[in-house]
């Protein structure tokens, strides 16, 4: 019965009533048609409100629009209908208030680790000495002390991801948007970086919106998991993950954790079946 309490499934009402860091209220977004004659509906009437300081994951089958929704929050996509809101103000474009970590390697290969982490600070006009100081702190926090002068191509994929995390945290955004950041890493590195990210989040308590394919990852990291369905992209359900924090490696072996992951898996399978064949 403890299981029942940890999972409040809510299919109709997706609003959470604390002051939201990010919100969308009935946005719609169309992609321009490539071959089809009609514009393609990727996000259909999305309502979502994300409270400050929470860790929210977006999961769902391919084509459900989770990455599109994330890019809408980043300001990299302006929705066809409506606007996303950051602390109540409409989002009209990308800027340093909405930091983003991408699945691809986005660390600049022509800058060394130190200069990469300084980039956002430099764009904000911070002076050289202060900038170097802040960057050094974050490099140390992600465990890359001693690699300041290294170029990205001399680092492993996991280390480059750490540089990326340090860079986005150093520029001090209001919210952090992560688009499958660990999707291209090997399994061991991924587990380590998940713990690393949790530690950073527990220290800074910055709002994180995290897109992933990996349901274990979503349950392990999040306060809330938003499940989206495809064609058209829409929110299908919201799971509140009441597993106590701090979460550590042992958490993954608890009955509560495995039951939640299992439950999510079942729902996604059902969504893919009802969408007429899975994308796998």
């Amino acid at each position, binding site marked *: 019965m403890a299981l029942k309490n940890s999972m409040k499934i809510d299919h109709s009402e997706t609003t959470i009533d604390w002051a939201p860091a990010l919100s969308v209220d009935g946005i719609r977004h169309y992609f321009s048609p490539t071959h089809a004659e009609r514009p393609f509906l990727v996000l259909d009437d999305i309502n979502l409100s994300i409270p400050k300081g929470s860790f929210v994951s977006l999961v769902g089958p391919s084509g459900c629009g989770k990455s599109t929704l994330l890019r809408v929050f*980043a*300001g*990299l996509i302006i929705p066809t209908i409506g606007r996303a809101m950051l602390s109540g103000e409409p989002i009209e*474009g*990308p*800027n*340093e208030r*909405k*930091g*983003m970590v*991408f699945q*691809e*390697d*986005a660390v*600049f*290969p*022509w*800058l*060394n680790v130190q200069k990469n982490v300084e*980039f*956002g600070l430099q*764009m*904000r006009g911070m002076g050289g000495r202060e900038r170097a100081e802040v960057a050094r702190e974050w490099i140390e926090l992600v465990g890359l002390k001693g690699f300041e002068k290294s*170029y*990205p*191509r001399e680092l492993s994929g996991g280390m480059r991801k750490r540089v990326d995390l340090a*860079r*986005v945290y150093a*520029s001090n*955004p209001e919210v952090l*948007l992560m688009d499958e950041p660990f999707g291209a890493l090997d399994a061991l590195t991924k587990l380590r970086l998940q713990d690393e990210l949790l530690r950073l989040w527990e220290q800074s308590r910055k709002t994180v919106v995290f897109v992933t394919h990996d349901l274990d990852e979503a349950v392990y990291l999040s306060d809330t998991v938003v499940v989206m369905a495809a064609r058209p992209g829409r929110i299908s359900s919201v799971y509140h993950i009441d597993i106590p924090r701090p979460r550590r490696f042992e958490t993954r072996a608890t009955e509560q954790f495995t039951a939640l992951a299992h439950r999510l898996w079942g729902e996604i399978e059902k969504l893919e079946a009802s969408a007429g064949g899975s994308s796998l």
Partner: protein
Amino acid sequence: MTLIAVQKTEPQPRVTARLNAEATGRAEAQAQEAEAGRKFREQASAKRRLQVSLGILSLVIVVAIYWIITALPSSNPALLPPPGVIVRGFVNGILDGSLFEATQASLGRVAAGYVIGCAVAIVVGSIRGWYRIVGYLLDPVVDAMRPVPALAYIPLVILWFGIGEGARILVIAFASFLSCIVSVTAGMKEVPIVYADAARTLGASERMVFLRVAIPSALPYIFAGLRVSLGAAWGTLVAAELIAAQSGLGYLLQAGQAFFRSELVIIALVIIGLIGYLMDAFLKALQTRLLRWSSRSG
């Protein structure tokens, strides 16, 4: 029933392994590592020696074949000057300063034309490769100009500007521009969008995305363009001097033909080749140094 029983009693092969203890054979391993390192270094230097000696060998063979041909009784020394004549001509040319003068005149022209042409190509090429609207505006013009060799503009340039120094530099600048801009534009179009998006979400303005992200990201391509257009500039220079100049290596080629002194032609050819080779080697070294971060720096 018996069959099943037989299968059950069959022994299964098992994986066997010896676990590596922490400190086994440390000294021995170190010696092996040193030995392996020595072997690798030896292999690398042997490879390098082979490369250099084969390069020298091919030069020696070419010279030797030439020597043999000139020594044949049927060979005409006016058309194929013997190596001794060429060396004497070279020494004389250095002593009276005429070779130095010709080289200096050519290098001055190519430097001016190359720098102007590449500078314009980098500015125009990066803007038209990055900003789509500028691309729409300029692509037809640039793409229609590219198939026409820069030398084909010489008659027009002479009509407009006469046969002065400016005209020659203009043609060389044009040749550099046409071959450089292709790579620059391609490089700007190949910039991974994720870099630009990452910079935007770190607070970079569009101007900063262009200057601090797109241009550095395209640098390997820009360098490739600089190397290609150096060859084009050098080649065009010689051709331009063949047609309209009273100094320079191209003029030396033409004078050698006019005065029937074939050794001058061969000396000029060797100098042109050598300088072209040295300039490319210089750019290559610069590229390796500046683009250490890139996997294309080689």
